[in-house]
């Protein structure tokens, strides 16, 4: 089961990363588009053509290629935001658990406050603020803003989890032994405690990648995500939604399926990763 998932995940990710080389067409190169090829159904249905395996959308863009390019964007945003929230969350969680006292209390209260906001709302807020602050440069900054917006909602989970694990590890005797040797608290935190609390973090990270991708998809669906020039899977789903009732279901369903597939595979990958990194199971 895990192997099948890994293979599928690897395939998806490979295709997405190497989209420009793997895709049969470049759907965003306006010069290659042919309006007469618009709204073609998938190849196995009547009216379809082998050139466009999964059909085309209303502008004549090949759905399969759009999937790969879109997944690329989605994955990029997903991974980047998880990296940011992981760094911030794990760092703050470690600090909180290790130092304790007022620092701990402060950070935990911040966490509590952040948790009372839904993450989509936070993302919308950040996006709105960014638009107001940088009305002209919006397109370039859009990715940055998006990543910040998504990670802001996600770091709290890491902080909480890591803080709990840190509290447990801090009292273990190998940490005390390091203190007796005279190792600096910073070094103990990073070299001793951190490797031992990362297990749950990795699993959390993979779940969060999936969640981030979905959040990004939601935001793009709502129109406040990635700029329309580089559509992600969410954008594709939104665009395709309009055509659902006119019978051209492939424009929205395939991007949806791809999204689910990627999210699922990333989750399974995470499970495998955590076991692979555990020295006890080597």
């Amino acid at each position, binding site marked *: 089961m895990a192997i099948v998932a890994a293979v599928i995940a690897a395939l998806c990710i490979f295709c997405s990363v190497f989209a420009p080389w793997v895709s049969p067409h470049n759907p965003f190169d306006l010069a290659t588009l042919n309006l007469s090829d618009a709204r073609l159904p998938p190849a196995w249905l009547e009216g379809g053509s082998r050139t466009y395996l999964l059909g085309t959308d209303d502008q004549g863009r090949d759905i399969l290629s759009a999937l790969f390019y879109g997944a690329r964007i989605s994955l990029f945003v997903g991974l980047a935001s998880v990296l940011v929230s992981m760094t911030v969350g794990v760092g703050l969680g470690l600090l909180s658990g290790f130092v304790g006292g007022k620092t701990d209390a402060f950070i935990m209260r911040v966490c509590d406050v952040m948790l009372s906001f839904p993450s989509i709302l936070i993302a919308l807020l950040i996006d709105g603020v960014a638009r107001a602050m940088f009305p002209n440069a919006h397109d370039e900054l859009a990715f940055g803003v998006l990543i910040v917006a998504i990670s802001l909602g996600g770091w709290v989970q890491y902080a909480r989890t890591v803080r709990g694990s840190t509290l447990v590890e801090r009292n*273990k005797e*190998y940490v*005390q032994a*390091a*203190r007796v*040797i005279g190792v600096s608290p910073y070094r103990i935190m990073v070299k*001793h405690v951190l490797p031992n609390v990362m297990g749950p973090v990795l699993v959390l990270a993979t779940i969060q990648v999936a969640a981030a991708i979905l959040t990004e998809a939601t935001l793009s669906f709502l129109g406040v995500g990635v700029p329309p020039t580089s559509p992600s899977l969410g954008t594709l789903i939104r665009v395709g939604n309009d055509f659902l009732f006119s019978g051209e279901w492939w424009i929205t369903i395939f991007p949806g399926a791809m999204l689910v597939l990627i999210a699922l595979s990333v989750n399974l990958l995470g499970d495998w990763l955590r076991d692979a990194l555990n020295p006890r199971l080597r």
Partner: protein
Amino acid sequence: MTPLVQVRDLSKTFDVSAPWLNRVVERKPRQFVHAVDGVSFSIERGKTLALVGESGCGKSTVARLLVGLYQPTRGDVQFDGQPTDAAQNAAGVRTLRRRMQMIFQDPYASLNPRWKVLDIVGEPLREHGLVNMSSAPAGARGADALKAKVGELLLSVGLAAADVEKFPHQFSGGQRQRISIARALATQPEFLVCDEPTSALDVSVQAQVLNIMKDLQRSRGLTYLFISHNLAVVRHVADQVGVMYLGRLVELSDKAELFGHPRHPYTRMLLDAIPDIHMSGRSRTPVQGEVPNPLNPPTGCAFHPRCPHANARCSQERPVLTVFQGVQVACHAVQEGRI
């Protein structure tokens, strides 16, 4: 000749009060635990002092105070004539750290499960710069030197040099404890604090570890502070024995005196309570009561509620550890000659 370790009036109080909000709302008073209360002793070079007592007596806290894991609330610790308190001796504390090390009770928690043995035992060497890591050609020579030194340390505790590449979970409890000992010996310390090092081990493994510890003491002139609740083990390893009860030292004497002629009623009770494998048929006084709650210690002598010899003075006045017939005892009845 100054003793290597001198402890005077050492005390540690922990604040275990409920959080501020709870205290205000429920009107609870602040609560303190006097984990260690005015303990004084000294250890001669090359000797072993054992601290015994039941749970909650403070012996582990004393161990941690000595190596600097806790800061004392009162009193001081002197190592080789110098204070170990960082406030008084900032420059010297780091060197002092090298000269004293600690071995812990739980062989499963005292080694970082994600580190290789090479890194675990090599950490003190790296930290104190005891292996020349910067000799050219840089990395390789230094890394080899470290590996060689760690291999040597492992051999000295009866493990194989090839074990450097393994992880802790590949070893048994007894072997892990030996790795801990190798790590403690890395900086060539003079003083080792051992907190129940064999309590978590099987009897036959315990014998192996105790033998190694004795051998090392002989060959390297080590001084030990040995914490244990097992009087038979203490009898085997110690030169001097201190008995603790609720944070206070109640008796301190040579091993032979303590086991042959225990003075304090609590010591007698402890010795009587040990199940005797050799069934020598000693007469035993029945044991009464349990260790009181440290949050609410008895007034006067902490042992008086359980003591068959307690009188009015015992419940009011706390006895001081004084010399009596060559041993140190904190008991009114003994000092008054009643027992």
